[in-house]
């Protein structure tokens, strides 16, 4: 293993990713549980058919946060957040913040694993115990992240086009039960309801925070901003299509009563005459791949954090975190607890990645630009 100065830990010249790969990592990290529940959670807040506008606004808000995070990370080339934060806040505070971040990734990982188990246990693998669903999922993730960021990014490159193609196919199939009247009137009750839901939809876009870490791995860090923006734009499209199709079919009143509205949409129509009549499995395939991608990133980011924090080899942390994430995924006692955990994670993200990077950026600006000139 590589020993020596800490900036060398884990980041060698081979372990670099290209700009498109960075964007794809961001996309895959964003798309997760939200795609199945967003139409409901957003409609609960907005209560008018303008949910799709809220989704776009939420995406734009996330873009601003992402740009701030990229700006911050660009100040410290080749270093991850775990490594450079102490140069801003001092050793102990930076350790605390890093630990919080690691905790966040672990929580999110557990949440992903649990949501996956809930949905597949309900629709796909009824009767299979939760552990039997979660454990193989985690082991495969372990196998992947052992290779470092490069294999992760390359796997995501394979997943991504499959996701987009299958998702678009399935979404547009549902045109059969789509009613445009369910999406009208546009802005019938003014702009206020649209703004009410922005927090919810912005939290559906959590994911760009990974830029704090993977920017250090980029071949061309100066393109990080572009990668982040592209990485958010594509999920905006996917979310808008989801919300429009789901609300178009189920209507605002109908969507708020369904636990997994997007799954209901796909389950609510059958097309005869094609090879397949039903498309639930296609959507689930795509979704499970996305859940796997998100989970992997969480696992990796948390392990990397611990390894850089304690300046130790990363592999023991990867193994060691498996049971931790598993236990976290088992904390929620019922499905409401799962959703609540999701909300809690959202609020943590809001503080950690919404406000904190801005604060750190301002502090580092005040402290001067010596880090940049050092290069």
């Amino acid at each position, binding site marked *: 293993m590589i020993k020596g100065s800490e900036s060398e830990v884990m980041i060698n010249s081979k372990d670099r990713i290209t700009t498109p790969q960075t964007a794809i990592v961001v996309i895959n990290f964003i798309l997760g549980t939200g795609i199945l529940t967003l139409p409901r959670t957003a409609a609960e807040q907005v209560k008018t058919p303008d949910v799709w506008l809220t989704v776009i606004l939420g995406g734009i808000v996330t873009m601003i946060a992402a740009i701030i995070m990229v700006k911050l990370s660009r100040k410290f080339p080749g270093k991850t957040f775990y490594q450079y934060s102490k140069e801003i806040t001092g050793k102990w505070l930076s350790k605390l913040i890093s630990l919080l971040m690691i905790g966040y990734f672990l929580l999110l990982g557990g949440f992903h694993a649990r949501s996956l188990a809930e949905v597949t246990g309900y629709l796909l693998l009824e009767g299979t115990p939760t552990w039997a669903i979660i454990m193989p999922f985690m082991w495969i993730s372990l196998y992947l992240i052992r290779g470092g960021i490069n294999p992760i990014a390359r796997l995501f490159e394979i997943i991504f086009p499959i996701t987009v193609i299958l998702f678009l196919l399935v979404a547009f199939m549902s045109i059969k039960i789509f009613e445009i009247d369910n999406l009208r009137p546009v802005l*019938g009750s003014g702009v206020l309801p649209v703004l009410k839901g922005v927090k919810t939809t912005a939290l559906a876009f959590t994911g760009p925070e990974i830029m704090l870490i993977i920017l250090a791995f980029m071949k061309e860090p100066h393109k990080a901003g572009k990668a982040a923006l592209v990485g958010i734009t594509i999920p905006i499209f996917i979310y808008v299509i989801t919300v429009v199709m789901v609300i178009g079919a189920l209507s605002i009143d109908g969507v708020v009563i369904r636990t997994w509205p997007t799954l209901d949409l796909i389950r*609510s129509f059958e097309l005869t005459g094609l090879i397949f009549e039903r498309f639930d499995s296609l959507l689930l395939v795509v979704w499970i791949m996305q859940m796997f991608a998100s989970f992997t990133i969480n696992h990796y980011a948390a392990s990397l954090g611990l390894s850089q924090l304690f300046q130790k080899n990363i592999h023991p942390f990867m193994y060691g975190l498996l049971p931790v994430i598993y236990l976290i995924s088992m904390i929620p006692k019922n499905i409401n607890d799962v959703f609540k955990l999701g909300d809690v994670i959202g609020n943590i993200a809001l503080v950690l990645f919404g406000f904190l990077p801005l604060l750190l950026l301002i502090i580092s600006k005040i402290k001067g630009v010596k880090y940049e000139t050092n290069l």
Partner: protein
Amino acid sequence: MKQTFNHFQFLLVLFSVFLLLPLAGCWSSHEIEEQSFGVGVAYDKGKESLAEKEFDEQGEGYTKKNLITSTYQLITPQVASSTTKQGGQQQKSYVNISETGDSPFQMLRELSLRSDTPLTSPHMKVMVISEALARAYSLEQLVDQTLRDNDFRPSCLVFISKGRASDTLESKTVGEIPAFHLYGMIDNSYRTTRILPPMPLIKLASKIQTGSSFLMQNVLSANGEIKFAGAGIIKGETSKMIGFLNEEELDGLAWITGKGKGGLVKSFDKKTGQLIVYEIESMKSHIQPHVKGDNISFDVHIESVGRLSESWMTSGSAFNNQFLKNAQKTSEKKVKHLVTNVLEKMQTKYKVDVAGFGNQLRIKQPRTWMRVKENWDQTFSEVPINYDVKLTIKDYGASGSKK
């Protein structure tokens, strides 16, 4: 030391090979030939079947009220295999089994006490609810279980039946599965305005949630045959059924909503009393709400393009525009009559809005809608509605003039 390492490696490989074995398995699999597929379900007012009565007489039952009888249409492995065999004796290709109780879910599970191939519902195509039951219970409660279920797809179509719902799942035709028959008939809406847009469970759930009144296709059964005849009116506030619209009223309704895909208008010439049939190629309607203070009114503009498809007139030539204009006028009058008729029924008799006037108000005057939506059906029954109808006969088929 090298030796032990190889041993370790060997064990690891062995372990991995054993791990591969369960990969080919399936955790909770059920063989397809040991299941019967439910393809249709009918809910009726409780009336025990003969078998059930005898079971009950012998005692050892469970506590229940005989409120609902659900009849499941199954395709069992036995039936499926006997119909595929050629030359065997001709028999029904489905099995209907009834269960009486008070919880649809419990009734479903009770079937497992009576059959070695329990019912699975991922292929449920239709659900028929009898009028008597729909009048007594809220639909929301009746379909609650099916909407929660993970097997029962929300794409299952829901119908109302004026008679006993279980009769609509019977057929005399050999080899026909009534549930599929019913499911397929809904696709005929391109030929008539008397078929409503399909109502899958998920749409039903949404309609119930919006709290506005709506229609559901009514199915009649007689002598082992079925027919779509009009629609049941479901009152939004209670989600219970309150009455019917007949076939002609459905025609009128289709003209108001403009959602018809095809069909005809039969009318009689004023002077000669002869038959004229206008075939709809396309129809469009535009409902414009007007709000002045507290007064709401609606203008409905109906436009349609079509063809003269039948004419019993003994004189006159369709090559002549005057003749076409006359036929147009006659048909327009008929459409107006249909519209008046259904509006009268909605506003005076049932006092419900099932034509989507409220929806148009919601879209075009959202603020007014917020104010009136609570009591919309009542408000609607007193709202003035103006309408105009414009039909255009584009052509008259292959025959033009007569003698």
